């Protein structure tokens, strides 16, 4: 009936900090999987290293906890060996965009039939709050104590350019929409990339004026803009406010797919 039966009850409560959004994303993904009606024996969760990548350890299905950034190659291997299996990859921004960036591009190019859920907390949360490729410009972290001087990585645009079949972005505030997006992504053949912005109260929020957990969730609510509205703004040449998080479905197309069961 709900995500509860997909969780390892004896492993809970999990080790995430109080208010960490990763748990919300796990709920949404499992709820979507529950709606798909997949069998537990035929679903595999793959993850790399990081806060987000601890998620498969709390799920009853078989899972792979792999080396840093190499979740997608392992998932590719699983899918190639057993095309009938459903493969879901949990990954973080440091895992996917930084050390595994190349694998991500090539997984999108090959368009393997897997679902990638990226929990983007905009920082390396597990190792002590170092700046990651998705840290927004001006944000403070332990390696950028005067504010990040680099533009952030837009993972959705990267996935579109590289050729993923389904790309969407939501935040941990939009739980219903995120659940729907993950479900549509799982139904779409080919690589489905869902970027979920999550709050990190311990390492990101604490240094960036989000002292309470609710502050950052409220920020997600007030600063997110639907993709269609954003495109309308762009069309009319109206300026979009700084630090806007564009949410919604970015692309849903039918490129040739690799790894479908024969």
């Amino acid at each position, binding site marked *: 009936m709900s995500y509860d039966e997909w969780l390892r009850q004896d492993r809970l409560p999990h080790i995430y900090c109080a208010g960490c959004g990763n748990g*919300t994303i796990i*709920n949404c993904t499992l709820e979507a999987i529950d709606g798909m009606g997949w069998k537990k024996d035929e679903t595999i969760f793959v993850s790399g290293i990081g806060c987000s990548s601890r998620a498969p350890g709390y799920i009853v299905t078989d899972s792979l906890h792999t080396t840093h950034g190499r979740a997608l190659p392992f998932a590719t291997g699983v899918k190639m060996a057993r095309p009938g299996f459903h493969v879901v990859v949990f990954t973080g921004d440091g895992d996917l965009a930084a050390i595994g960036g190349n694998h991500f591009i090539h997984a999108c190019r090959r368009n393997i039939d897997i679902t990638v859920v990226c929990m983007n907390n905009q920082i390396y949360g597990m190792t002590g709050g170092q700046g990651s490729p998705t840290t927004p410009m001006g944000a403070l972290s332990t390696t950028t104590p005067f504010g990040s001087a680099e533009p952030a990585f837009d993972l959705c645009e990267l996935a579109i350019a590289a050729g993923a079949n389904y790309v969407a972005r939501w935040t941990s505030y939009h739980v219903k929409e995120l659940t729907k997006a993950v479900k549509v992504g799982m139904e779409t053949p080919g690589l489905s990339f869902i970027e979920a912005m999550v709050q990190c109260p311990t390492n990101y929020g604490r240094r960036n004026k989000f002292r309470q957990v609710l502050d950052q969730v409220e920020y997600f609510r007030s600063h997110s803009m639907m993709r269609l509205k954003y495109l309308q703004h762009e069309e009319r040449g109206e300026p979009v406010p700084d630090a806007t998080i564009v949410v919604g479905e970015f692309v849903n197309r039918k490129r040739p797919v690799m790894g479908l069961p024969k």
Partner: protein
Amino acid sequence: MKIEIDESRCKGCNLCTVGCPYKIFQAGKKPNRKGVLVPLLDRPERCTNCRLRHLYGRVLCGVCQMTCPDQAIRFRDEKPGETVKVAIEY
């Protein structure tokens, strides 16, 4: 059907207090045995999902359950013979 907060899982982040449209969850005041301020339920009989889920046969709102990062909130059917409080509020 009623809402339950699992005190052994709740970490007191108070994310449920923003999600609920009825403001059923209120920030806790008293720490429990683990030192966690578990949110309090303010007249939980108002919850739409609790009242109408069986009538409609599907999950109606459930945002608190989805938002809770610690999987501490769950909906549970009443045991046979358990008294049910009914909300009358317009």
